[in-house]
């Protein structure tokens, strides 16, 4: 268990070449018999620490399935998935929960904040499940909120915040545990252009700070912000190109 407790900040100092994410021949099959659906037909992908990857694909291309597996919300049918050096593809429920808590920060399309709960309490939640003491938790949550520029809204509940602000709270929640990987599932899908710009600016900032980000999107202008663009089609990777990430 102590293996999981390696501090996130410590990992980033090991250089950009160590893979955070190492996926080999991943397949995912839903259903049986005639109703069988091959969502992933052998995906191999390596993401180095500090990289900023956008995954694109039309609907049905398997990008959501890949996202769920990368986020340890689902397990692959075959293939291996090493996250930060640990093979997580065969872990049980309790261990997967631990991996999600310590190593992955989620940003969802629909924000997914807990309703009727203040912004700071939402950001504290993953720390609470990690067993961090309340005072330390509050300090780190406020620091994370400050980083996304919402320190002044810490006591607001989700329904008192705009969509862009809610998504920034969600980003703060994703980075508060200092995870090895930040997974963003269409983070700008529900936002207007101004809020989109705000959220993307924060992701850029995180990238500059050395965080590893994997983002799923179907908007080309959003994908253009990333350093690497992976395109999925019909459960397979079709293109994988480096780009300069210029605005």
């Amino acid at each position, binding site marked *: 268990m102590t293996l999981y407790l390696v501090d996130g900040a410590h990992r980033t100092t090991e250089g950009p070449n160590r893979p955070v994410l190492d996926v080999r021949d991943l397949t995912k099959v839903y259903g049986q018999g005639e109703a069988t659906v091959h969502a992933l037909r052998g995906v191999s992908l390596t993401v180095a620490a500090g990289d900023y990857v956008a995954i694109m694909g039309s609907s049905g291309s398997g990008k959501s399935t890949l996202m*769920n597996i990368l*986020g340890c*919300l*689902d397990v692959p049918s075959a293939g291996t998935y090493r996250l930060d050096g640990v093979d997580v593809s065969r872990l049980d*429920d*309790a261990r997967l*929960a*631990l*991996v*999600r*808590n*310590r190593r992955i920060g*989620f940003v*969802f399309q629909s924000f*997914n*904040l*807990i*309703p*009727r*709960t203040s912004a700071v309490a939402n950001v504290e*939640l*993953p720390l*609470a*499940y*990690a*067993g961090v003491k309340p005072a330390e938790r509050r300090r780190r949550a406020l620091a994370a909120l400050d980083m996304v520029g919402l320190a002044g809204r810490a006591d607001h509940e989700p329904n008192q915040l705009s969509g862009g602000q809610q998504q920034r709270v969600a980003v703060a*929640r994703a980075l508060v545990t200092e995870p090895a990987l930040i997974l963003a599932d269409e983070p700008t899908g529900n936002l207007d252009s101004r809020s989109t710009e705000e959220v993307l600016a924060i992701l850029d900032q995180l990238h500059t700070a050395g965080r590893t980000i994997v983002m799923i999107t179907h908007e080309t202008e959003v994908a253009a912000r990333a350093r690497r663009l992976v395109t999925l089609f019909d459960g397979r990777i079709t293109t994988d190109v480096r780009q300069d990430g210029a605005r």
Partner: protein
Amino acid sequence: MSLLEILRFAGRGVAANKLRSALTMLGILIGVAAVILLVAVGNGSAQAVNRSIEALGTNTITVSSTARGGTTPSALTVDIARSLHDPALAPDVRAVSPVVSTTPTMTHAGTEHPVAQFLGTHPSYFGSSNSPLAAGAAFTDQDVAQGRRVVVLGRTVATELFADTDPVGQQVTVGGALFTVVGVLAEKSSASGFSDPNDLAVAPLTAVQQTITGYGPVNSILVEATGPDRVNAAQQQVTQILNQRLKLPAGTAATGRGGGGGGAGAAPYRIQNAAQLLATRTETAQTFTVLLGTVAGISLLVGGIGITNIMLVTVTERTREIGIRKALGAPRRTILTQFLAEATMLSVLGGGLGVAAALIGSRFTIVGVQPVIVPSSVALALGVSVAIGLFFGSVPASRAAGLRPIDALRYE
């Protein structure tokens, strides 16, 4: 994650929907309060019955005639009553009072009152039946011997006929004869709601026979034993003498538990003692308590099902939230504990308020009974309500904990 933390989450969950939580708690509150209060009412009425029977005197035996005819050889007569007071054959009998009873209408100065029990007896009746006088004096053996028309009134009769004036020394008319009131009985507590023990009048046996009933057999004989522990011995002696006098086979058993006694070929009389009466009444009261408790228990069960229902709705409604928590790394155990804690909180709060409501309710008289709280019923009701929270909450909680995070997140 500490238990305290989980409890805080659960508390927030309960507080999030106040009306619903309040209504759910109300179900448990009513259930718990009903169990405690109804058992207390049953217990209270049982105690009231016991008290009134003890007030009647626990060392008396009542011999009552079961024969229909007037002067059949088996009828109880004053002679037989007299024969029971025999220091040789019945050493455990202290006093014997033959009793005739009728239900005549008593009038005074134009006011009428139908007396529930107009008894003709001997003065020893007052001592044996534990009926002290509040005013005036009882009649004497001399009054009985001379057939003097005097009467002692019960509290109800006295107030009915002589609203405010002192009845002692006044005259009342019973069955066309004038009786002089010589005393008033002290008020007796009501044994149950069935009859008023204060609605009676007591006069010398001879006077009542002379004016109303005629010189036939008596209705019953009240026998007082020398002490509460001699009641059974006295009862045996009385039975023996009666069997001899009435020329019954020696082995005839005439004792009846409660309303038993006297099947075909059995004795033409029935013997009851207060202890038997007490046992019968206590048994009845217990049945009553169990019945009330059961009905209340059912309402507690219904309250418990209400908790399951509300928790199922809550889990369904918060499926997304559960998904988010799981995605953020909440282990199965934490989710399970949170929802179990929510259900238990509802039931414990409801149960606690129910106990409070029952304690307040027990200060009032309910259908003429002063409830007496049974401490074990409080513990039982609270225990059951906690168990209900855990048991009925476990189904929705395990459902919530078992949800797969992706399914829960996709749920709309």
